[in-house]
């Protein structure tokens, strides 16, 4: 089917080049455009404040993205299935508390504490998954219930007090030391960022290359069709929530090791930041599409914005106003980008 209009003249011209170039050109441009909002923010803040573009500050932006980034990755899975997870924030805290129980209260070795955090995260995710897949409770409500349940449990288990990791001196190192800095002293990027990066790569591989990833997209696209194809949709949905819960466990480890303590009251409200990062990153709340790269960009947009406004000493109430506006604008920019890219 040939379509010789103005729009396709360019394509025809491109045909002179290699097939690859032709395929990749618009895609690359589209991917770069996804960064547009982030780059715009970076440029703006760099001009607005000399302090912004300093290594220290960039490192602290990276550091502050880690927790929200990992939570956002967890949310990405769930959101691609057209679900939502409001419990990620308090689940993170719950996992931190469980690590605290294992390491500090029970005095177990570090590896067991790490395992416990991820295990209990996965377990809670599993419960959400069962509620949603088997009992057909809408994700919003199931995870809202889980959010409250886990918030309460964290307080109960910790005795409403922070649990400190003073007896496990290696624990803070998980997030605060810098493996990269060890090899390249001028780049003291804390491990938390490295972990965020590793989680992102792993999540990306799972989403794009594995059967779980395929079903994640398929569930979000048309669950009934998947079921009619003979796939056990309930099972896979539970797996998705379980994996997402496990990733929240990693976020729990990151925040606990950064604060050298499990803060039982923290967590609520973090889910909105995580979901915002996912959506700013171009994942649709109606499911079926989404990328980890987008989510990471979204998380960085959030943390650059927060950091930049603080560096500019904008009054705090105005920071809130500006953040609200920028979230809307960033998503709008993404919508425009998609619209223009799909028009060609």
């Amino acid at each position, binding site marked *: 089917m040939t379509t010789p209009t103005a729009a396709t003249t360019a394509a025809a011209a491109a045909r002179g080049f290699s097939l690859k170039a032709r395929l990749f050109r618009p895609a690359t441009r589209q991917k770069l455009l996804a960064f547009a909002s982030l780059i715009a923010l970076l440029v703006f803040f760099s001009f607005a404040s000399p302090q912004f573009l300093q290594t220290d500050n960039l490192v602290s932006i990276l550091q502050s993205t880690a927790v929200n980034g990992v939570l956002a990755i967890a949310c990405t899975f769930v959101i691609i299935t057209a679900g939502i997870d409001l419990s990620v924030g308090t689940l993170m805290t719950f996992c931190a508390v469980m690590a605290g129980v294992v390491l500090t209260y029970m005095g177990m070795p570090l590896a067991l504490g790490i395992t416990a955090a991820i295990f209990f995260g996965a377990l809670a995710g599993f419960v959400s998954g069962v509620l949603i897949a088997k009992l057909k409770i809408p994700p919003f409500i199931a995870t809202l219930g889980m959010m409250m349940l886990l918030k309460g449990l964290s307080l109960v288990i910790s005795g409403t007090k922070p649990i400190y990791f003073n007896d496990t001196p290696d624990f803070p190192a998980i997030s605060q030391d810098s493996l990269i800095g060890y090899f390249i002293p001028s780049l003291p990027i804390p491990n938390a960022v490295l972990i965020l990066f590793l989680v992102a790569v792993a999540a990306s591989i799972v989403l794009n290359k*594995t059967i779980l990833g395929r079903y994640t997209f398929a569930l979000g696209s048309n669950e009934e*069709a998947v079921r009619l194809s003979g796939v056990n949709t309930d099972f896979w949905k539970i797996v998705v929530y379980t994996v997402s819960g496990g990733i929240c466990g990693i976020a729990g480890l990151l925040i606990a090791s950064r604060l050298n303590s499990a803060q039982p009251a923290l967590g609520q409200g973090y889910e909105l930041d995580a979901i915002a990062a996912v959506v700013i990153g171009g994942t649709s709340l109606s499911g*079926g599409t989404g990328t980890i790269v987008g989510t990471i960009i979204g998380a960085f947009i959030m943390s650059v914005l927060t950091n930049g406004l603080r560096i500019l000493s904008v009054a705090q109430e105005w920071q809130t106003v500006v953040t609200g506006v920028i979230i809307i604008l960033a998503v709008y920019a993404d919508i425009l980008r998609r619209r223009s890219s799909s028009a060609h």
Partner: protein
Amino acid sequence: MAPIVTIRDLCKSFAGVRALDKAQFDLLPGEVHALMGENGAGKSTLMKVLAGVYSKDSGEVLIDGQPVDIASPRAAQALGIGIIHQELNLMNHLSAAQNIFIGREPRGRFGLFIDEDAMRTQAERIFARMNLRLDPHTPVGELTVARQQMVEIAKALSFDSRVLIMDEPTAALNNEEVADLFRIIGQLRSQGVAIVYISHKMDELKRIADRVTVMRDGQYIATVPMAGTPMDSLIAMMVGRQLTEVENDFPDTSGNEVVLEARGITRGAVVRNASFVLRKGEILGFAGLMGAGRTELARAVFGADPIDAGEVLVHGRKVSIKSPEDAVRHGIGYLSEDRKHFGLATGMDVETNIALPSMKKFLSMGVFIDQAAIEAAGERYVKQLSIKTPSVRQQVRLLSGGNQQKIVIAKWLLRDCGVLFFDEPTRGIDVGAKAEIYRLLNQLAAEGKAIVIISSELPEILRVSHRVLVMCEGRITGELAGREASQEKIMQLATRRETAAAAAEATA
């Protein structure tokens, strides 16, 4: 020969509806077995029970003589039963290949990773077998309904089933594709695959079916060999009475007032510089191959999609149509070819769907809704179009496909537009109702309405159109008077591609 499938005394009820009432069916290896019946007769339901989608209330299903309980689609697959559903069941965000192999992805390393290359190759192989030129990587959501249907067929073929159920597979296909499909069905039959074929297109059934089972109101009527059974008697079995054919009488409308004129409508590459006039009291047929741009043109005129260039005149006056609302205000209605997504609010009831474009007619004091009047209107059309529904309060999603289509028609009849675009109006509609709709089209035209009918079934175009426009690759490639139109002439225009057209213009 021993039947592969035997169904006995199968009963299945839904809320307030007895869909199957002691239904029977048997299927022999290597036969194409047609299942016929009016809309809502229970054909799809029967097949869904066999495919593990619904569980039966009572009765027996035997496979190879053994009673089985088919609890899930997976169980049906395990028994070698594959199905193409009447409604599309695709994941729009996934590619064609991904859709085909969902649940059976070829695995690579560790059994966790998907072997995309293998999947692509296998998909290409199936497409080649179907004569389908389609990149397996294309996301299904970007395909037309017809091509999506082809993907569904490809998916069903990929199962290598012993029993293949096809529930109206050709509803969205054009003749070429139908021919390809029949060729494949022929191959399968010769390999001993048993095929259940559901369709409302009688000529198709004549061409490929070996035996026919007729159903009515969820009950088994009869099973007869296709060859030797006259169409009339099959139809009589289906509807329980004799139908009289309506003949087209091609009134001369060339002198009538022009009610709608489109000039140079252009939308990207899919509609290019299309112009046409539509007169009072005429039925204008739009013919063309799949993807010719007829739907896109109608949507553009209707304001459903933005246009790049062109203008629309209503009663000779230029009007600005930027949204369907504008179009409807100017008396233009459009019945979409995709009723599930664009035609109906399937979660709402029959009467509300019928009243939806006309809501303002049912207001008292400007805001309050006169429910009694809506109900009365709903009931009027349910009766007029013989829509099979327990009540006007039934949710539309619970009706059979054909009855849903009738509701789409009803809602535009009620809106009483002067210009009506019918995009594939008889898709999935049984013969009785089809005749009903043709009669209705004639009646509307006689009342002075101007009608556009878009159809991929050439016999249908020929039967109802007073005048035929043919499209190819987004352009209008020719016009034929109804009386002189023939399948051959239409096909010639429908395949007049760009280069040929340019050559023709040069000589003219």
